């Protein structure tokens, strides 16, 4: 039987999202929502790594997203755009095509380094301390940005729109969406491989029983720091995309509400399930857009949804299973090369 792989799924999604946007079949609004879905998938998976797979409780994920958003946006605007904040660009705007992904990577690295500040003190103890410290960090992040007037302070920072239009002048492509798509693919691949690697088995062991896993020679502290940095780094890169998709960022946009939205998406999808995260990020982003006519009541509906979810189905849509666990038939079509070899040697 012919076997398919993830490449085919990605290509199919590429065909229904990026290609029609490039051909101009979708309106600006639909393109924006599609980009947002991509960003939310990355954010949800990155938080799921920390809260779902590792079983810790981070409530200030928006701070790391915000660090990435600010770092990436400051870099691109300084280098490639004419702005009110920094004046003329340092480099030719056309180079943004190369510079934009680099800025995203730097944003991710900055967020990962920032997360190290949190990780080192908080993983000394178990329990709710990560929640408390990430919460405090979210306050600190907002307060720091509000105090830097050179980047707009509480009024926010803008100018990323010029960067994206500079990129579109070089080659006509929905650049932010393309990179969002690439980041989704990278995130899914990296996290999927990470969780099934020896390191990743270690974090699941930490979730199940930290003391037992430590006795089984899992280096819990190192592993927690690595996982936290990976999760926050991915969130930072997604934040960079978020800044460019909105072309406006402000410190209050990366505060408790944004953190809660990410938590909702993780728990809606199911802790420790990548396919659940993808499904819930897609569904929730669309739901948020559909609820737009409710105006302020939208923000009443979201926490209510989470409360009801906790009351009636606390495991989320998928629990900690993947699509392939629910529909075993899928496994036949989507096995990786290694598994095929393993299956083959087992049957022979």
């Amino acid at each position, binding site marked *: 039987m012919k076997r398919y792989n993830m490449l085919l799924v990605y290509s199919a999604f590429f065909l229904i999202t990026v290609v029609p946007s490039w051909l101009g079949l979708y309106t600006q609004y639909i393109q924006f929502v599609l980009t947002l879905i991509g960003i939310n998938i990355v954010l949800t998976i990155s938080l799921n790594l920390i809260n779902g797979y590792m079983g810790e409780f981070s*409530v200030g994920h928006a701070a790391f997203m915000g660090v990435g958003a600010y770092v990436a946006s400051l870099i691109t605007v300084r280098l490639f755009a004419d702005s009110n904040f920094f004046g003329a660009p340092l480099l030719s705007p056309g180079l943004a095509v190369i510079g934009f992904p680099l800025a995203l990577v730097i944003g991710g690295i900055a967020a990962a380094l920032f997360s190290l500040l949190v990780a080192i003190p908080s993983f000394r103890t178990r329990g709710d301390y990560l929640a408390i410290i990430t919460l*405090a960090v979210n306050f600190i992040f907002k307060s720091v940005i*509000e105090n830097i007037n050179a980047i707009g302070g509480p009024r926010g920072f803008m100018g990323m729109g010029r960067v994206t239009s500079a990129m579109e002048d070089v080659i006509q492509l929905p650049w932010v969406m393309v990179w969002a798509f690439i980041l989704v693919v990278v995130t899914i691949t990296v996290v999927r491989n990470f969780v099934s690697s020896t390191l990743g088995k270690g974090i699941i062991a930490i979730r199940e029983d930290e003391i037992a896993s430590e006795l089984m020679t899992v280096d819990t502290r190192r592993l927690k720091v690595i996982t936290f940095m990976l999760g926050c780094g991915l969130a930072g890169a997604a934040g960079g995309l978020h800044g460019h998709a909105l072309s406006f960022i402000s410190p209050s946009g990366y505060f408790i509400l944004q953190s809660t939205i990410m938590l909702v998406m993780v728990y809606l999808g199911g802790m420790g399930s990548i396919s659940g995260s993808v499904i819930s990020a897609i569904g929730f982003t669309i739901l948020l857009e559909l609820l737009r006519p409710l105006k302020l009541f939208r*923000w*009443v509906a979201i*926490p*209510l949804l*989470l409360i009801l979810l906790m009351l009636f189905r606390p495991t989320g849509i998928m629990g900690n299973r993947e699509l392939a666990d629910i529909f075993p038939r899928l496994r036949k079509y989507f096995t990786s090369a290694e598994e095929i070899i393993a299956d083959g040697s087992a049957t022979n």
Partner: protein
Amino acid sequence: MTLDSFLQNFLNAMQLGSYLALIAVGYTMVYGVLLLINFAHGDIFMVGAYVGYFIGTFLLNRFDVQLPFDLPSWVVIPVTVILTMAITALVGVTLERVAYRPLRNRGAHRLYLVITALSAGLFLEYINLASLGARDRQFPELIKKQIYPLGGVSVTNIQIMVILVSFSVMGLLWFIVQRTRWGMAMRAISYDRLAVPLMGVSVDKVIVTTFVIGSSMAALAGVMYGTAYPILRFDMGLLVGWRAFIAAVVGGIGSIRGAMLGGYLMGFTQIFVTAFLPSTFRDLITFTVFLLILSVRPTGLFGVARRTKV
């Protein structure tokens, strides 16, 4: 800094610390019996302030719907305070009954309770914003503000009242926790939650009592906060309550005297930072200082590390 301005700041810090300590006590008591960070508690404080606003304004005849007679202020103040505490306690208990208890009875993981608490807080906040609008509310003047100059320091009657009331309420709380049967049950639950129901103590009743005490203290803090700073905002639970939460953690969550100390410590940091630096640096410095304390003493000042037996 001169002595006068030091004393003035000291007084302001005591006032701010009083609210924070009252709210922090609520966080810490719920944590003591339930091991739950009740993230909604800051918003219970907000509910208290708004309930106080509606009752106070109504009793002072400032609404369209009016009482047929005017009430003297010595009636209005206690009635407002007691009614507000009762209604807010009801909100707190409802939250416990509707959201927390079903989860607890099912034996759900503690994490799910924390998420429920977090969303309950946001729910309260945004239902307020959506139903009452984004307009700031002016808290009614329950007590006429009087300023007594003492040398270079100006003392208001509200400041004295706030500090005295919170000290006496915390004294009362200490009495309840240390000297009554209910207090003994609370302490017993936080000591060993498995043995307590075996001794014939109804855990649910103790938990409800804890929520009543915690919420009514938050309501008291809300009314006093409204009297001192009469502008009410929908996100005041976030702005004031979460600081109180961090204060409770730094004091050592689960410890009542830790929460009181943490509250005053937070008040002092916030006021004395603004005495030297622009007020925008307040949160930055405060939270950084508190994070440093936590990284040196992860269990907080009075917290006891729980040992895990293998």
